[in-house]
């Protein structure tokens, strides 16, 4: 097991892992592996956009030990659980979703992991969850399958991301416009985001996710 440049993420034989925060406990059906005194949880890039992004050989996902993270579209917390391993006891991840079924899972997960907080709300209605998160967060992660996903991201970054903070937006071409070619959709989204923020990375999540891109921004 070797540590990657990405803080808190480890690699062995092409598979990636995080240090399990709660020993012996699985979150989904991932493998637990033991190396010396440490226990690692395998991070499946097919089930996690951030996992797929890491497997594109990037150098940083901008999430640190102690980070506060706002995660829009947290679903049942598969990805959030690995971010929870990374941010550790001093960090906090606020996970937001509007579908009750995955949110039930995420509430249970939040009760187990002391750095996860659940919010049952619509990511597009930024005023409605203002009292449930801190005034500013270090990182915003978004993975929602809505048509106006770029607009939702821009609103949240403007309102909640600290100056100098990072935003990771996973773009799903097919939920934006099924009639357009994905390349065209990506180009339009990229231009829309570029008008507002500095894009520091933009790359495809193939082969783990079809027609998906990750856009990373830094707020001035």
């Amino acid at each position, binding site marked *: 097991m070797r540590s990657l440049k990405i803080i808190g993420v480890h690699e062995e034989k092409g598979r990636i892992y995080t240090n399990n925060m709660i020993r012996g406990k699985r979150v989904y059906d991932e493998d637990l592996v033991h190396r010396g005194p440490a226990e690692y949880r395998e991070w499946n890039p097919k089930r996690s956009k951030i996992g797929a992004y890491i497997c594109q050989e990037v150098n940083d996902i901008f999430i640190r030990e102690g980070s506060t993270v706002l995660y829009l579209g947290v679903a049942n917390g598969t990805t959030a659980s690995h971010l929870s391993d990374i941010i550790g006891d001093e960090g906090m991840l606020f996970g937001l979703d509007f579908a009750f079924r995955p949110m*039930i899972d995420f509430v249970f997960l939040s009760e187990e992991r002391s750095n996860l*907080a659940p919010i*049952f709300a619509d990511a597009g209605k930024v005023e409605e969850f203002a009292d449930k998160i801190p005034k500013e967060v270090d990182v915003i992660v978004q993975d929602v399958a809505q048509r106006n996903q770029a607009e939702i991201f821009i609103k949240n970054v403007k309102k909640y991301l600290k100056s100098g903070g990072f935003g990771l937006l996973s773009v799903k071409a097919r939920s934006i416009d099924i009639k357009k070619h994905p390349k065209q959709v990506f180009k339009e989204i990229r231009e829309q985001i570029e008008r507002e923020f500095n894009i520091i990375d933009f790359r495809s999540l193939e082969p783990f996710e079809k027609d998906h891109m990750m856009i990373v921004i830094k707020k001035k």
Partner: protein
Amino acid sequence: MNLQDLRKKDIIAAKADISASLGIDNYIIQMVAHIEDLDSVLNKLVKRFRDWYELVMPELSRAHHDHSEFIKLAVDMTRKEGSMGRAYTHEDLAGLEVLRSEIAHLYVVKDEQIGRLEGLMEREYPNTCALAGGLLAAKLIRIAGSMKKFMIMPASTVQTLGAEKALFRHLRSGAKSPKYGLLLAHPYVAEGENKGKNARSMADKIALAAKVDYFKGDFVGDKLKESLR
């Protein structure tokens, strides 16, 4: 407020918010899914039963294609003269009979559950039921996700609900657009001279009825139904 206090507050709020968001539609959707489960389980059990029963009397199985009718008649497991089957002993046939009676019971359960669902739908959404029938109306709500989402849909969307695969193929590649989806289950569409046309006018009335139901308007289902003639 420190992060830990905020988290504890969020957990309590999320629980209350989830609870408050649940409505009768969630219950209806589960019930429809359950009835569809029963259909697929029954299908699987009946297929095995036919295979098994054909050792005894293949002629009876082949003469009755309707599953539930066949299951009732198959209570007779004595080999008839000239049959291709074999006369197994009463004792040997016990296992086959257990399967038959369980299937027969499941058909009864399915009918009862459909009756309960239709009663529930009738109470909640009488106008939509008058047009589509309770079971079909419930299936439409299931695809939409809730009555609110269904009610917002234009008639053209209602018309092709359940044919999403064909619809998206049409949008992507310019293949022919689907004329109907789930609405084909309704006799007005299925038995119509022009199915596409009937699906279009039926979808139009269902979309109206759903709006009336959602906003708790007066009963106009009979008038809407009359206008389809």
